[in-house]
């Protein structure tokens, strides 16, 4: 008899509370934004923050409210922006060029002179606090790999010469590595670009020649002899204008005395 009471009491209690909750759920119902949920479903879900919003859900909310522009999602690229514009009913895809990170430095402890030996914690920003790094070149890579740690897709790796490299196939263009890098030696270049100037040093040629054998000495051979290559030298550093880049850049790379124009692939 007692067990029956126990059963009834608990059942009645649960019923009353359940009913009260059902009423409350009706009263406090939150209308969910259907558009935002649809957009969230097609976003890559990497939560990389390349769009400038807190995660994919933040960007989806902003898109559905119309406060954000379409096409900010670099991992998703043109495919995602097309799908988003279909949901929003704004028509065609926003054409965005796929950008990838590139480490504009091929210097390392063998080819670049060192000011001192760094023995602190393995973090580029920590090393940068000490006289802007152990390398004599204050513009280049510190080789401690803070960018490897922040990369959400493991596209950055260390090659056999201790150089930090980015795999353009894996890179989703989230720019996290460019933000963590203390020397800003990692810059975004278009995915279609075939070559890049692997140097970030703005010092005069004579200074660069003393401290690094693979740095740009601003000799202007690429600019003068290969005007079609897209290479221009400004502030003692050559750079590739990807809007003008042609196949001639391969010749410029071969002619470069310090071989600092390298293939981007």
């Amino acid at each position: 008899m007692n067990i029956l009471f126990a059963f009834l009491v608990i059942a009645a209690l649960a019923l009353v509370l359940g009913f009260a909750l059902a009423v409350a759920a009706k009263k406090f119902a939150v209308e969910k934004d259907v558009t935002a949920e649809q957009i969230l479903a097609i976003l890559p879900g990497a939560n990389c923050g390349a769009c400038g919003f807190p995660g994919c859900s933040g960007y989806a909310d902003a898109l559905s409210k119309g406060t954000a522009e379409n096409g900010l999602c670099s991992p998703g690229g043109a495919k995602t922006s097309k799908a988003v514009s279909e949901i929003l009913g704004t028509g065609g895809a926003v054409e965005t060029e796929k950008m990838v990170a590139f480490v504009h430095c091929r210097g390392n402890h063998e080819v670049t002179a060192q000011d001192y030996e760094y023995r602190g914690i393995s973090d580029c920003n920590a090393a940068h606090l000490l006289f802007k790094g152990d390398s004599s070149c204050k513009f280049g890579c510190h080789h401690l790999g803070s960018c490897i740690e922040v990369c959400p897709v493991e596209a950055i790796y260390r090659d056999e010469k201790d150089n930090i490299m980015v795999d353009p196939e894996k890179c989703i263009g989230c720019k996290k590595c460019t933000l963590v890098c203390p020397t800003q030696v990692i810059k975004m270049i278009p995915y279609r670009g075939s070559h890049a100037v692997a140097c970030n040093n703005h010092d005069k040629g004579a200074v660069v020649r003393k401290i690094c054998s693979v740095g740009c000495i601003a000799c202007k051979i690429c600019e003068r002899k290969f005007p079609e290559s897209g290479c221009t030298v400004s502030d003692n550093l050559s750079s590739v204008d990807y809007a003008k880049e042609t196949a001639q850049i391969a010749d410029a790379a071969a002619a470069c005395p310090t071989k600092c124009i390298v293939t981007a692939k």
Partner: protein
Amino acid sequence: MIYIGLFITYIFINNFILTQFLGLCPFIGVSKNSESAIGMGMAVTFVMGIASIITYLVYHFLLLPLNLTYLQTLSFILVIASLVQFVEMVIQKNSPSLYQALGIFLPLITTNCAVLGIALINITEGYNLMQSFTAGLAAGIGFTLALVLMSNIRERLDLHPVRKAFRGVPIAFISGGLMALAFMAFDKSLLTNLLG
């Protein structure tokens, strides 16, 4: 006078987190910034206060007359779970940002032993309705106090160089332990000195 005593008891002497070690999950989980710590504290205080009243009513007007006191744990959990659901709905409706900040810890108040703890303590101590409510409220405020103090400490810790092995949760545990030691200073003699 007894109500002041109850407040002092459950905020300082028997602080749920720092002396009774109940509800440690949100103490570490939600204490990263003071804003969400205050929100969590408010939510728990509300749940504790209301839960004290409802569990008192359930116990004294349902379980006791029917001789079913052995069902107290089960029925209390039922009441607390529904209450938390209710609070979750209200917060989601009124403050979506707080809802996001609390995240998984909001539904986890359901399994927060501090809430069930105050309900059971009220019964064993033999409090009446008003005393139960006061005890629940005070316990919630004590919980909030511990959470807010902890979150302020952790915000400061974020700015200080901490050894890599201690960064994050380990240093939080150590600070929590030191806080618990400090709270040991509050004991029953405080109450007798204050209230005679």
